[in-house]
C-alpha cells in the first residue's frame, strides 16, 4: 500500500486544487465584505453551463471559458445587488438565509433552462503525464496550474493595484476605509466580480472532465466551506492550504482507511479544527468566550 | 475597610503592557474618578474589574470576596455592574423588555420600573431601544446596570456626547447613586465634569497609576498637569 503513496499524494493535491480554486472566491468575498455567499456554488455551476453553451455553439473551449467567466463576473455583481445589498443593515443570519435562497433560485433557473440531464464539455487537454512515481492527467495539471496562477494573479491585484489597496483597506476596517474616501460600491462590485471569476473558472475547467448539472455546485460549496474553516475564513493562503489539506486528507482516507468514511472524515476534520483552532490556520482570532 | 481592593494588576496584549502593576483601594459610598489620556488603560481596567478580560497578574477583592479576578457572571453576582463606552442596549427589544432582561435574566428578581422613572425613561418604555435618541440610550445603558442592584457600578464615560443639560442631569444621577449606597467608579474624559462630582481621583498614564488623591490635589499636581491636563486641555 505504501508504494502507492506518491500517487495518492498527487491525487490529493489535484483534488485539493479544485477545492482551493472554488474556495478562493468564497473566502475573498467573506474576508472583504463579511458576506457568506453560499450562491458561489451556483456561480461555479453557471461557469460550467455557459462554457458548455459556448462550446456547443461552436466556440473554442478557451474562448468559451473566458466569455463564460466574464458573464459570470457580471452575474456575481448582480447576485450581490439582489441578494446582499438590500440587507446591508441586517444580521449575518439574514445574509446566510438570503444566500441559501439565491442558490435555490439559480439552481432552478438552470434546471428550467438546461434540464437535469448531466452534460460534459470535451476535454481541451487530453492525455496523461506518466512519471515513475505517479501519473496525472494533463487536465488535472491544468487545474493545479490555473489554481496557482489564479492565486498569484489575485495576490498581484490585491497588492499591486489601487483597486486592490481599496479592497484591502475595506477588509481591514470598513469604517476607516469609508472615511478615507474609498467608494464602497466599487470595492463591492470588484470583490464580487473577482470572486465570481474564480467560481466560473473552476466550473469551466471542471466541466471539461465532470458532468455539468444544475445542482453540481452544492457539494463543492460545502467542501469550500470546510476549506474556509480549515484555512481561516477570509484568508487567501488559508483557502489554498486548506483546500490542499482537505484534498489530501480525503484521498488518504479513501485510499488507506475506508471509502465509506470519506465524507465523514472530511467533516470530522472540520469539527476537530473548529475545536482546536476556531480561527483556522491563517484566520484572525474570533474565539467565543 | 475598602469595598474594592485592586492589587498589582498587570495585563499585556501581544507583548504590549496595557496595564502594569496597578493597585488602589476604593472605599464604600464614594464616587471614584479615573482619568487618563487615550490609551492609558482605563477601559481595560473596567474590563478586568467586570470580568470581560482576565489580567495577566494581580488580585482583586470586593466586599469580602477575595477570589478576584472573576468571570462576568460572578462579578454581577457579587454586586459589580458596568456600562459601556459605546452604549450597549438590546437594540431589537423595547425599553421595558431591556429592563426586564436585566432584572429577570440578569439579577434574578422582578422588573422594577422605579429605575425607569429615576432615569426619565418612563415615557419611552414601549419604544424599541435601537430607535431611541442618543441621550435616552445612554440613560438606558445606566438603567440596565442599575437594574442589577449593584454595590459597585463601573461607568465608562457616561457623559460622552451629551449636551450640557444632559451632563448636569447625569451628574445628579451619579451623586444620587451614592446616596443609595452604590459606590461609583467613574471613567471620564470630560475632566471638568469628573472633578465636579468625584470624591477621589486616580490618574492613569500608559498603563501606570500616576496619581491618586482629591480632585483639588489632582488639579495642582505638576505631573498630572504635564502628562494630561497640559497636553490636551480640559475636554481633550
Amino acid at each position, binding site marked *: 500500500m505504501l508504494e502507492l503513496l506518491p500517487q495518492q499524494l498527487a491525487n490529493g493535491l489535484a483534488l485539493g486544487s479544485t477545492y482551493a480554486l472554488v474556495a478562493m472566491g468564497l473566502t475573498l468575498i467573506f474576508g472583504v465584505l463579511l458576506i*457568506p455567499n453560499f450562491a458561489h456554488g451556483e456561480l461555479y455551476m453557471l461557469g460550467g453551463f455557459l462554457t458548455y453553451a459556448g462550446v456547443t455553439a461552436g466556440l473554442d473551449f478557451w474562448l468559451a471559458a473566458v466569455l463564460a467567466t466574464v458573464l459570470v463576473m457580471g452575474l456575481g455583481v448582480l447576485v450581490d445587488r*439582489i*441578494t446582499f445589498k438590500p440587507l446591508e443593515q*441586517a444580521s*449575518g*443570519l*439574514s445574509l*446566510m*438565509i*438570503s444566500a*441559501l*435562497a*439565491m442558490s*435555490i*433560485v439559480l*439552481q*432552478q433557473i438552470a*434546471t428550467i433552462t438546461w434540464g437535469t440531464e448531466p452534460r460534459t464539455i470535451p476535454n481541451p487537454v487530453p492525455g496523461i503525464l506518466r512519471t515513475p512515481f505517479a501519473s496525472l492527467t494533463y487536465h488535472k495539471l491544468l487545474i493545479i496550474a490555473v489554481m496557482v496562477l489564479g492565486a498569484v494573479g489575485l495576490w498581484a491585484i490585491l497588492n499591486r493595484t489601487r483597486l486592490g489597496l481599496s479592497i484591502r483597506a475595506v477588509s481591514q476596517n470598513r469604517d476607516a476605509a469609508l472615511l478615507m474616501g474609498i467608494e464602497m460600491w466599487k470595492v463591492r462590485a470588484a470583490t464580487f466580480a473577482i470572486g465570481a471569476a474564480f467560481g466560473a473558472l473552476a466550473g469551466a475547467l471542471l466541466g471539461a472532465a465532470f458532468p455539468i448539472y444544475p445542482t453540481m455546485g*452544492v457539494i463543492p460549496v*460545502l467542501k469550500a*466551506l*470546510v476549506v474556509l*474553516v480549515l484555512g481561516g*475564513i477570509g484568508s487567501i493562503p488559508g483557502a489554498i492550504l486548506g483546500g490542499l489539506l482537505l484534498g489530501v486528507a480525503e484521498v488518504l482516507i479513501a485510499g488507506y482507511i475506508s471509502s465509506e*468514511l470519506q*465524507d*465523514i472524515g472530511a*467533516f470530522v476534520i*472540520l*469539527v476537530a479544527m*473548529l*475545536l482546536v483552532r*476556531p480561527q483556522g490556520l491563517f484566520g484572525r482570532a*474570533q474565539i*467565543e468566550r | 475597610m475598602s469595598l474594592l481592593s485592586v492589587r498589582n494588576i498587570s495585563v499585556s496584549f501581544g507583548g504590549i503592557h496595557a496595564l502594569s502593576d496597578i493597585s488602589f483601594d476604593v472605599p464604600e459610598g464614594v464616587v471614584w474618578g479615573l482619568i487618563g489620556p487615550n490609551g492609558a488603560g482605563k477601559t481595560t481596567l473596567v474590563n478586568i474589574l467586570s*470580568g*470581560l478580560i482576565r489580567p495577566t497578574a494581580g488580585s482583586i477583592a470586593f466586599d469580602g470576596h477575595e477570589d478576584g479576578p472573576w468571570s*462576568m*457572571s460572578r462579578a*454581577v*453576582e457579587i454586586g459589580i*455592574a458596568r456600562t*459601556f463606552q459605546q452604549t*450597549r*442596549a*438590546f437594540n*431589537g*427589544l423595547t425599553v421595558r423588555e431591556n429592563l*426586564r*432582561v*436585566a432584572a*429577570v*435574566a*440578569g*439579577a*434574578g428578581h422582578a422588573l422594577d420600573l422605579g429605575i425607569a422613572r429615576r432615569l426619565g425613561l418612563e415615557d419611552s418604555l414601549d419604544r424599541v431601544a435601537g430607535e431611541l435618541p442618543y441621550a435616552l440610550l445612554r440613560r438606558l445603558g445606566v438603567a*440596565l*446596570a442599575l*437594574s*442589577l442592584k449593584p454595590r459597585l457600578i463601573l461607568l465608562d464615560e457616561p457623559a460622552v456626547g451629551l449636551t450640557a443639560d444632559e451632563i448636569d442631569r447625569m451628574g445628579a444621577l451619579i451623586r444620587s447613586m451614592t446616596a443609595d449606597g452604590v459606590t461609583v467608579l467613574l471613567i471620564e474624559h470630560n475632566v471638568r465634569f469628573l472633578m465636579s462630582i468625584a470624591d477621589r481621583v486616580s490618574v492613569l498614564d500608559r498603563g501606570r497609576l500616576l496619581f491618586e488623591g482629591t480632585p483639588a490635589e489632582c488639579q495642582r499636581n505638576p505631573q498630572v498637569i504635564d502628562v494630561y491636563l497640559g497636553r490636551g486641555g480640559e475636554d481633550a
Partner: protein
Amino acid sequence: MHGLTRPLLVSLVVLAAALAAVPLLNEYVLYVAMLAALFAILAVSFDVLLGFTGYLSLAHGALFGVGAYCCAYLTARAEVSFWLALPASALLTAVIGALVAVLAFRTRDLYFAVLTLGIGLVGHQLFLVASGITGGIGGFVGIPSMPEIALFGSPSQQKLVVALIGVWITYLAATAFVRSPLGVACQAVREDHVLAQALGIRIAVARLSAFVFGAFFAGAAGALFATFSNFVAPESFAVLAAGFQVVVLVVVGGMGTLWGPILGAVLLTALPESLRVASTYSLLAYGALLLAFIIFAPRGIAGFLIDGARRLRSARAGREPSA
C-alpha cells in the same frame, strides 16, 4: 408563568377547531396535514434557537433523524411500547443535542452555521454507514404503527390527532420556555451577548438550554414521523432536506414568534402539494419566496399579520396608523 393563560386559551380554541376538522378529511389530506403538523413541531422548537437565541443551526434535520431512528429501533427491534419509545427518543435526542451544542457553541455566526452544517452532514452519513442499526441507504423497514387509540376514528385520523396535540404541546412548552428567565436570557444572547454577559446572564446555560429544547422536540417529531411512516430512510434527514426546510418554515412564518412557524409549516407543506403538477417551478417559487421574505419581510407572515392587526386597532381607535 402568569402570562400563559391567554396563549393557553387561544391555542386550545385553535386546536379544537383543527381537531373538529379531522373527520372531514380524506386519507390524502390527512397525510399531508400530518406532515405539516410534524414540520410545525420541528419549526416551533427550532425557532426557540433561531428566532429567540439567534443561532442558525443546520444540524436540526440530523437531530430529527436521531429521534426517528431511535424510535424505530426501540419499537421494532427492542419491542418497547411506542408510548415509552416516544419520550425516550426525545430524551436521547436531547442528550445528543446537548453534546452537539457543547461543541458548536464554541463558535458563533457563520462559524456556528458551518460547524452545525458539518455536524448535520456527519449525522446524515452516520445514518448511512451504521446500517446495522439504521438499515443504511435501504432505510429502516417495518416500524410498528402507533398503537390504536380505541376511542375514535381511523388510524390516519388518530395519527393526525396525535400530531396536532403534539404541535399544541410544543407550542405551549415553547411559550413557557421563552417567557421563563432562561428564555429571556436567550433573547439577551440574541441581541448582544457581551452586554448579556455584563448583566450577569449565563449565556452558556441559556443557549445550551435553547438548543436542547429544540433537540428534544426534534426528537419527538422524529419519533412520530417514524411510527406514522412505518419506514424511514437517511435521505429525509439530509441537511439540504429537513435541515434546510425547517429554516425556511421559520423564516417565512416569522422568526421570533411561536405561531408564525406553525403558519409557515402549514402553508409551505400545503402549497407544494397543491402545486404538485409544476414542481420544478414550485421549487423556484420556494427559493424566490424565501428571498423575498428575508429581504422585504424579515419578520415573515407573522410580521404582516401583527402589523395588520395593529393598523386595524389604531384605525378603530380613530387614529392615524403609526409608521
